[in-house]
């Protein structure tokens, strides 16, 4: 093969069919994950080495049950497979079917078969099937589908090499001829196929039929095509829902006898241990308790396990910054690197330990199959506030970062429920709030032990989290009253067998998520830290030079030590800089919340990302080593409020700031993802305004009551 374009092979199958494991097995570390893919962008792709020395591109599609989709993830599959000009329209398909309840996997397989794309049918997890005493006569399956069949297992490695060899033939195969088992079409279906083929130049009748069913949302159709198809179908009273059911039933009626003949069971099915485990895990009382205990453990782990690596990263970057200042000449770009770029990079990387731990633990829960149990348990509660059981996955992930959480809502079929989940997910305290909470919480509660075992600050942390969760649920309920939707709301989720987590799967997905965070959040923090450095280092006209001269004069009069003088000069320069001007400009708006212009600067800069707050405070209070929280806290504690003469960070101001950061939508990346996932500017704007209003009102009340 010498063609320039890599051959594309689609990996398709039901959810929990063992598709991801096969993807990881075939591609290994050769995976490319498009960061934060938009609705139209494809998912994971990976390069597969073929025995011939060539490579091909494997595209992993979301788990799908049928070509009549419910969620936007499933729609993506239909979109690609009905559009032969699509970039990822496959040259061949590897269809992955689970070895248990083969009928369920056959529905999509027969639908895809009719599209005529060369296909290889893989019976995955054959080891699990055999353990349960199920064997299949694959010749019968192969005869029926008219495509080669292969029994594989990623656990034991069975037939993976054979699969690679067969792939070579598969990608060179011609399109399949018409399927002899293809179900006859009704008159109405034939008419619809004729209409679509006329408008679209589609040479495959099943593809035309799918386009007839889904023309209202398929993105590859032009508006004109959509209108033409729509009016032709309307005039013949095309009954889409009924035809879908009819077709589905026809397929089951045809292939069920085939599978029954191919299947051999050497013992009757007994109650599996999955069910016995679930009698505890999803128990009325124990189930929710176990869930909360697991969440409590995860958050404890985030704090305690990440402490050491976080300190290493902080110290490493501080040392790097100082080192560069020592070896490079004292010019503006040294300042930019040492004060802007390196602390900016450090500000991103310092979150890696916490994010990694959180994603690792959540990934493990998903891999063993626990998350679908949580979905089942909490659907009732979620329904009451306008969410879906599947929202629980997004809300839990939000504890790390709202961005992957918002992306995970694509599995929610109902648009209203999905939208509400997107809107409230950022109210759950994410890891970027941790440094702010850490700095401020000491000003609100004194460090002591409660009830002999609990750390008072740890409890305060938990209260902030609970506050975020409660307000998220209440806001969801409010949104439920306002958002109208005619969509059917439902939840159907398979509860897969519990299985031993495959380390490779967990690690690859962990790598993907951590990298997404570093890259996408990092880009923004990086740019902002450069802008911030500029705003803090330069001022209008000659104000900076004047401020420097004046500060040196004052410190000489007051006989400051060189260290004190340096700090004083830096603080005076900050006040005279563009950042200071900005801070003073918004001071009237934030003084009812108890903030001064210095905090104003931090509020503005941390709009980019919350974690920028701490770095900004460190710069403003001219503390060396931007991430050194202890010294920053000490410095903040010494700050005097000129109006009252008391400490600047008293209970009222600190509580007000904390509440502000619990609620405010201080994250550009989240707004960008909301924009992409809702495909409109309306929802990110509403999200920003409602969270901002919540933050302002609660901070205002807290300050006015406490001061």
């Amino acid at each position, binding site marked *: 093969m010498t063609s320039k374009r890599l051959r594309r092979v689609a990996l398709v199958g039901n959810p929990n069919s063992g598709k991801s494991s096969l993807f990881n097995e075939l591609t290994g570390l050769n995976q490319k994950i498009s960061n934060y893919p938009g609705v139209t962008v494809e998912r994971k792709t990976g390069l597969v080495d073929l025995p011939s020395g060539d490579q091909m591109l494997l595209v992993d599609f979301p788990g799908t*049950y*049928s070509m*009549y989709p*419910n969620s936007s993830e499933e729609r993506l599959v239909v979109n690609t497979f009905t559009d032969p000009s699509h970039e990822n329209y496959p040259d061949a398909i590897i269809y992955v079917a689970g070895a*248990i*309840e083969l*009928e*369920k996997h056959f*529905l*999509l397989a027969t639908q895809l078969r009719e599209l005529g794309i060369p296909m290889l049918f893989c019976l995955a997890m054959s080891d699990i099937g055999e353990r*349960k005493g199920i064997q299949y006569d694959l010749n019968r399956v192969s005869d029926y589908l008219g495509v080669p069949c292969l029994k594989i297992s990623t656990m034991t490695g069975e037939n993976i090499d054979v699969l690679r060899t067969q792939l070579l033939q598969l990608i060179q195969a011609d399109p399949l001829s018409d399927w002899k088992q293809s179900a006859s079409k*009704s*008159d*109405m279906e034939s*008419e619809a196929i004729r209409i679509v083929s006329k408008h679209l130049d589609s040479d495959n009748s099943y593809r035309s039929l799918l386009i007839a069913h889904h023309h209202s949302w398929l993105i590859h159709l032009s508006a004109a095509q959509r209108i033409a198809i729509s009016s032709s179908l309307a005039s*013949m*009273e095309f*009954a889409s*829902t*009924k035809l*879908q*059911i*009819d077709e*589905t*039933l026809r397929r*089951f009626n045809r292939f069920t006898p085939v599978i029954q003949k191919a299947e051999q069971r050497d013992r009757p*099915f007994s109650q*599996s241990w*999955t*069910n016995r485990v*679930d*009698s505890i895990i*999803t*128990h*009325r*009382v124990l*189930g*929710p308790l176990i869930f909360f205990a697991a969440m409590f453990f995860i958050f404890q782990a985030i704090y305690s396990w990440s402490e050491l690596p976080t300190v290493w990263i902080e110290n490493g970057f501080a040392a790097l910054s100082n080192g560069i200042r020592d070896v490079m000449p004292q010019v503006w770009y040294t300042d930019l690197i040492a004060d802007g770029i390196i602390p900016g990079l450090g500000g991103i990387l310092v979150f890696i330990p916490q994010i990694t731990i959180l994603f690792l633990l959540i990934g493990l829960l998903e891999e063993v199959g626990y998350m*679908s149990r949580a*979905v*089942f*348990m*909490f*659907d*009732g*509660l979620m*329904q009451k506030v306008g969410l879906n*059981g599947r929202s629980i996955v997004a809300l839990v992930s939000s504890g790390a970062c709202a961005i992957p959480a918002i992306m995970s809502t694509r599995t929610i079929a109902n648009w209203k429920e999905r939208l509400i989940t997107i809107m409230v997910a950022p109210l759950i305290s994410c890891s970027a709030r941790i440094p702010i909470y850490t700095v401020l919480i000491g000003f609100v509660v004194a460090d002591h032990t409660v009830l002999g075992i609990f750390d008072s600050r740890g409890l305060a942390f938990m209260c902030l989290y609970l506050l975020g969760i409660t307000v998220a649920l209440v806001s969801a309920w409010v949104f439920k009253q306002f958002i109208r939707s005619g969509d*059917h709301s*439902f*939840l*159907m*989720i*398979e*509860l*897969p067998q519990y299985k031993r987590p495959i380390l490779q799967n967990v690690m690859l997905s962990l790598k993907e998520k951590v990298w997404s965070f570093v890259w996408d959040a990092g880009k923004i923090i990086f740019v902002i830290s450069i802008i911030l450095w500029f705003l803090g280092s330069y001022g209008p006209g000659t104000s900076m030079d004047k401020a420097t001269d004046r500060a040196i004069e004052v410190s000489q009069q007051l006989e400051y030590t060189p260290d004190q003088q340096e700090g004083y000069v830096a603080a005076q320069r900050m006040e005279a800089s563009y950042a200071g001007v900005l801070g003073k400009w918004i001071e009237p708006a934030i003084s009812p919340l108890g903030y001064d212009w210095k905090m104003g600067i931090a509020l503005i800069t941390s709009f980019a990302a919350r974690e920028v707050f701490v770095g900004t405070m460190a710069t403003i209070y001219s503390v060396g080593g931007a991430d050194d929280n202890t010294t920053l806290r000490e410095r903040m504690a010494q700050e005097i409020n000129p109006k009252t003469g008391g400490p600047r960070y008293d209970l009222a101001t600190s509580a007000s700031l904390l509440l502000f950061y619990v609620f405010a939508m201080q994250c550009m990346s989240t707004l960008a993802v909301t924009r992409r996932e809702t495909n409109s500017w309306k929802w990110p704007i509403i999200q920003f305004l409602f969270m901002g209003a919540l933050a302002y009102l609660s901070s205002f009340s807290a300050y006015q009551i406490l001061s």
Partner: protein
Amino acid sequence: MNISMERIGNRAFYCHFCITEVVSVRLMIGFRSVLDLKKGESAVVQRFSDTKLAASLMSLGIIPNASISVVRRSPLGGAVYLQLGMTYIAVRNSAAQSILVK
């Protein structure tokens, strides 16, 4: 001619799946829904009372003549945990109510 034939066919189909037709109400009498099953009780799927949900339920393997049983209900209500052959599926009460069994 073709189209009217098709309509007759559709009407038959409507009756089979019991949607909004008055006739169909009579056909539904005598069927219980999955939601009426006791914990651990098993039954055979007959038809669906809600076409919108039927296609999705069927793609999960819940098809007429399949044997289905209720394993447990969710802790906070709202959903049921079903067993279908060797697989377990959770659906909301509303969907469970649309699965008619005998």
